[in-house]
Every structure is written in C-alpha cells, then in structure tokens.
C-alpha cells in the first residue's frame, strides 16, 4: 500500500493572510518570504502601466457605448493584479488569458486595438499569438488552463526553460477543466502557473456561492502544488509573489496556483447591470483599495512623482486611447470570403460549394446594388 508523501503537507497550506507589501496609504513594508528590490524607475513604470491600462480600458467602454464595440469586459480595478503578474514573466514565457486581461496584453506588447477585434466583431481574433506569446482570449471558462498545462508539458519535455501562465477568474475554479489542468501540470511537473484573479464575482455570483474553500489558494493543496495568495490590488506584492512562483517553475519546481485578491470595479461586461446584485456601499469600500491610488501614494511619499511625469504619463495614456479609437474606427469589416479561408489547413474536399454559394450571393448583391444606383 503506497502512502504517497512528496511535499510536507503542512507546508502546502497557504498563509492565513495574503501577501501585501504596499498599504493603501502608500506605506511599503517588507515580507520575509517575498523580498522585492525595486528601483524608483520600476516603481514609476508600474504606475505608468496601470494608468495607461485604465485609460485604454475606459476608452474601450466609451467605444462600446458609441456602438463601435459590441461588448467590453473591463479590467478596471484589476490593473495591479494584471500588471504585477505580467511583469514577472520573461518574454519567452507564454500567457493563456481569459477575456479580461487587457492589462496583461499590453505588458506583452499586444496591440489593444487588435485585441478588441473580438469585441468589435470584425474577426475572431486580432493578434498573432506567436508574436507576443500571448494566446487568444479563451471565452469558455477555465478551458485555457489545460492549454497552459499542455504547453508547459511541451516545454518540460523539450528542456526549454519557459513558464506558462493561465489567467482565470474565481468562477473558473469551479469548472472541471481547471481541476484537470492543475492535476496534469502537477503530475507532469510542468512549469505552469494558474493565476486566479479573485475579483469576488462570476457575473452576479459572489465568491461564497462559488466555493466553500477557506481561500482559493487552498485549492492548490489537492494537487500537491504551492498555493500563493497575494493582495492583487498591490502591484508590488503581486509582482513579488508571481516572480517567486515563476522562478520556482522555471527551476523545475513545477506548477503553482496564485490567488490574487482584487475587485471588479466595473460591470461584468458592458451588457451587465451590477446594481441587481451588489450595493453602492460595497463598491465604495472596494474603491478604497484601488491599486493605482495606492501606487500614487507610494510615489508621492517617495517624491518620485512630479507634475511633469504625471503629465507625460497622462499624455501617453491619451495617445494610447486615441490610437485605440482611431484603429477601432478604421478597422475594416472583415472580408466575408475569409469565412472559408482558415477552417482547414488543407481545405480540399471541404467547403467548395459553400464558397461558391457565398460568392454568388455577394455578386448578386453587388449587381443589385449597381442596379439600384
């Protein structure tokens, strides 16, 4: 009878308190287990990225309101969790996002306008994942956890020291695929990080109806992997914790799960009406933990933020938003004939009659249009 003990189970239990380095008032302290040396320039950069992300996100909401996007899933309030974790990655690492990772995408160098193709409905994706190692958005909840696990298995088989990270929400932890993804990664000792942005809601369903686990980080115990927990609205804690998990994975230590505690300040998507399920008071309380305000407090305390820098960041944010706006407006409607182009690598035997049918319909339409004009 085997009695399997790989890791001291006591050591698998996440700490009672999430890791936090930066207090809402901007005071910074050290954590014995998660040391973080950050240069002033890096602090400014973290702030800058969060500000720009928020502005671009806001612009996307505006574009949706103006009918340019069918939908947007805002990351407002989650910039700390996203920027902090994404900056812990190397360029060679791979990101497997859900649909809410605008901040992560921007760190990876994905053009936001490209990303928003999906919400605009021009095409099903607008970026080449191999250029930025940022996979396509995964809309079916939790499914990307398995892709991240498989990709990481491949890296391990290949002795390639890269790490994959799957971004999922708190709701996603209920799906079977997340379970299977964690288990595969653990069994194959694959360098995959499961980064759970616990923004407290899955659309309208609050965390306590999603799970009775003490914390989401406790879910790691059942896979024999470490479960980390950080204040996701503390970009520095998120960076430090993710770095630790990523380094461990890169060094062959296997997968880990990170729960980043945050809060979705916006509606689930622009189609959602959150007043049906949460109160104004709750929102106001959550706003007090805002990741950007916190970072500004730190910079101000350290006198790292002057008007000039603020203005430069503002300008950059304005430019990014304007670029997004322009690109979205200019984005060509897809060519309908492209419907048939990428279904198969080898399309022979498929779709000839469909292609001919649409071609004929388009021709007839064009002819009718000409006839009318």
């Amino acid at each position, binding site marked *: 009878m085997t009695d399997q003990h790989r890791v001291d189970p006591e050591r698998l239990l996440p700490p009672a308190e999430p890791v936090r380095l930066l207090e809402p008032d901007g005071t910074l302290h050290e954590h014995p287990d998660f040391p973080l040396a950050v240069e002033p320039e890096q602090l400014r950069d973290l702030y800058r990225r969060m500000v720009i992300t928020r502005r671009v996100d806001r612009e996307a909401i505006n574009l949706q309101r103006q009918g340019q996007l*069918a*939908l947007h899933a805002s990351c407002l309030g989650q910039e700390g969790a996203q920027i902090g974790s994404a900056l812990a990655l190397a360029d060679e690492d791979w990101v497997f996002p859900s649909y809410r990772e605008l901040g992560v995408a921007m760190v990876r160098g994905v053009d936001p306008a490209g990303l928003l*193709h*999906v*919400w*605009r*409905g*021009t*095409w*099903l994706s607008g970026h080449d994942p191999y250029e930025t190692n940022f996979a396509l958005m995964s*809309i*079916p*909840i*939790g499914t990307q956890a398995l892709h991240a696990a498989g990709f990481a298995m491949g890296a391990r088989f290949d002795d390639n020291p890269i790490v994959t990270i799957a971004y999922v929400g708190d*709701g*996603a932890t*209920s*799906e*079977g*695929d997340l379970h299977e993804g964690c288990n595969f990664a653990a069994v194959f000792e694959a360098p995959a990080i499961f980064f759970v942005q616990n923004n407290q809601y*899955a*659309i*309208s*369903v609050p965390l306590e*109806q*999603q*799970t009775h686990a003490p914390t989401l980080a406790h879910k790691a115990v059942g896979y024999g992997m470490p479960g980390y927990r950080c204040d996701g609205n503390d970009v520095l804690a998120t960076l430090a914790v993710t770095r630790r998990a990523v380094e461990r994975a890169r060094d062959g230590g296997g997968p880990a799960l990170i729960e980043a505690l945050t809060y979705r300040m916006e509606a689930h998507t622009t*189609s*959602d*009406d959150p007043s*049906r*399920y949460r109160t104004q008071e709750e929102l106001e309380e959550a706003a007090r933990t805002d990741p950007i305000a916190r970072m500004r407090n730190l910079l101000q305390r350290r006198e790292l933020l002057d008007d000039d820098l603020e203005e430069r960041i503002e300008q950059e944010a304005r430019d990014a938003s304007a670029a997004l706006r322009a690109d979205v407006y200019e984005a060509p*409607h*897809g060519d*309908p004939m492209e*419907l*048939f182009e990428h*279904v198969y690598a080898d399309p022979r035997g*498929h*779709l000839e009659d*469909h292609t001919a*049918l*649409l071609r004929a*319909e*388009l021709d*007839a339409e064009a002819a009718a249009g000409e006839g009318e004009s």
Partner: protein
Amino acid sequence: MAITMAQALNRALHDAMADDDRVLMFGEDVGRLGGVFRVTDGLHATYGEQRCFDTPLAESGIVGTAIGLAMYGYRPVAEMQFDGFSYPAFEQIVSHLAKLRNRSRGAISLPVTIRIPYGGGIGAVEHHSESPETYWVHTAGLKVVSPGNPEDAYGLLREAVASDDPVVFLEPKRRYWMRSEAQLPVEVAPMRQAEVRREGRDVTVLAYGPMVRTALDAADAAEAEGWSLEVVDLRSLSPLDTDTIVASVQRTGRAIVVHEAPRTLGMGAEVAARVQEQAFYHLEAPVLRATGFDTPYPPAKLEGYWLPDVERILDLVERAMGY
C-alpha cells in the same frame, strides 16, 4: 398588452413553479440577476433560494446535479447560459440524462428540462450564437424542441417541464423580443406536432425556432414573384413529426429546409432523407437546404453573410421551381 417571447418563457416558468412545488430552476446567474436575458426574472424573489438558485460555474455540475435532484423526486429546469457553453455538460447529457430511463428499464425517470438560449443574429461574440441541435437530436432518449413564437414559447415550455422525459429546450434568443398579442396562459398543439403556419401550393419551407419568422418573411416576399410557399414550423426536432412534413411535401412537391446550424448533418439532412424516402414519387425537385455554412460561427460583423435569410431561401425556391 403584447408580450415578448422572453416574457412568455418567464411566465411559463412562474406558472410551472406555482403549479408544482417540485419544479426547481437553477444555473448560472439565474437567481438574483434573473438570467442574462432576464428569462428567470422574479423567480428567486417569488419562490426563494431553494427553488430558483445560482450554481457554481460548472455546466457538467449543473446537469449532473439535475439528474440527482430528479432521481430524488424534483423536476429540475436547468439553464445553460448560452448554446456554446452547453458543451462541458455533453457527457452528463448524452451518457446519463438521455439514457438512465432506458438503462434502468424504466425505473428511473428524469423529468429534467435543459433550457438553452441558442442561435445567432444578435451580434454576439464567439460561443454565444451556436446552433447545437444536431448533437441533441442524434442522441436517443432526449426530446428536443424549439418555439418559433411567444405562444409556443409558453406552451412548449409548460409541456417540457411537465414531461417525464428529459427535454432540451432551445430558445431562439434572437426572437426573445418578438411580440405577440396572445393572452397567457395559452393552449398550443402538443409538443410533438409540427404546424403548418401558412398554406401554399408551390414549395414547402420547413423551419424551426429563429428561422420560422424568416421563412414566413420569405413566403411574403415570394408572393411578389408569384410563388406560393407553405411554411411548416417543426416545433419538435426530436421526435420529428414526419407525417405533417411528408403530407405537406406531398401537396407541394417541393421542399426547402431552413436552419442556422451548419449544413452537414444539420436538421436539413434528416428532413431531406425522410422526405425523399417517404414522398419519393411526389418530389418534383430535390429537397434543398438553406443553412449556415460548414464553418465555425463567424464574427458578429459577418454573421449577416453566414446566416440563412430571405434571399438565400428565395434563391432555393427559384432553383426548386426550375426543376
């Protein structure tokens, strides 16, 4: 006062829950939020947390626990939030929900209704516009229905919830806002029967769910061309009311099946196979199919090119009339 299809569905759930306290309604966001389309609006407030409730985000979990609840004695109505998110529940639906009655030689009864908003035409993102009916219709042990108007939405849902068989109830989401002057509750024909919605002489157009309206529009437009179309609303996809279908085609001699789902092994294939078998000598033209393409569902801006519409139907009418 006119009611929409979504309101008719909501009313059907209200009435079903009022009439039978074993009826439960659950799924993702169906409780306090009332569903992303508000189809379950007010049920949580009226019937409480134990009759209408939100589940964790797990579709296999939703259907699997519905099976357990049904075995216990409840009549669960479970919602899959969108068509494309019913797939994680495939195993529970196909291996258990559809088969447990047969496997148990009738001892286990699973009066479960799986509500799925389905189909395209609302400009939604990927996975939110699929037409998965083939997967369910090919699976013996399930009943599959789809209403084409608010009256049927009410009547068929009441019958589905009352049925001792598992029913996949496909709600044509682009018709949620379609209106009717009908007074609820309304009596409609039994679930298993197709209905002739409009009589015609030249071609029978067979449609269901979202495409019934489109077929009727095509019939209007065809009149201008001098063609008389008969429109049959299939209503039930499993069982398929072959008698009504065949009788109509025997009258007209021509048939066109319309659906959003991809053509290959879409419902049109089965209808065509049955019609040519049972009305062989009556057919003056082959049964034709106006359908989506054999590709993944397109991005929203292109769905207009992909979805069958009046034009695509009329082109086939012309072709059928040319034989």
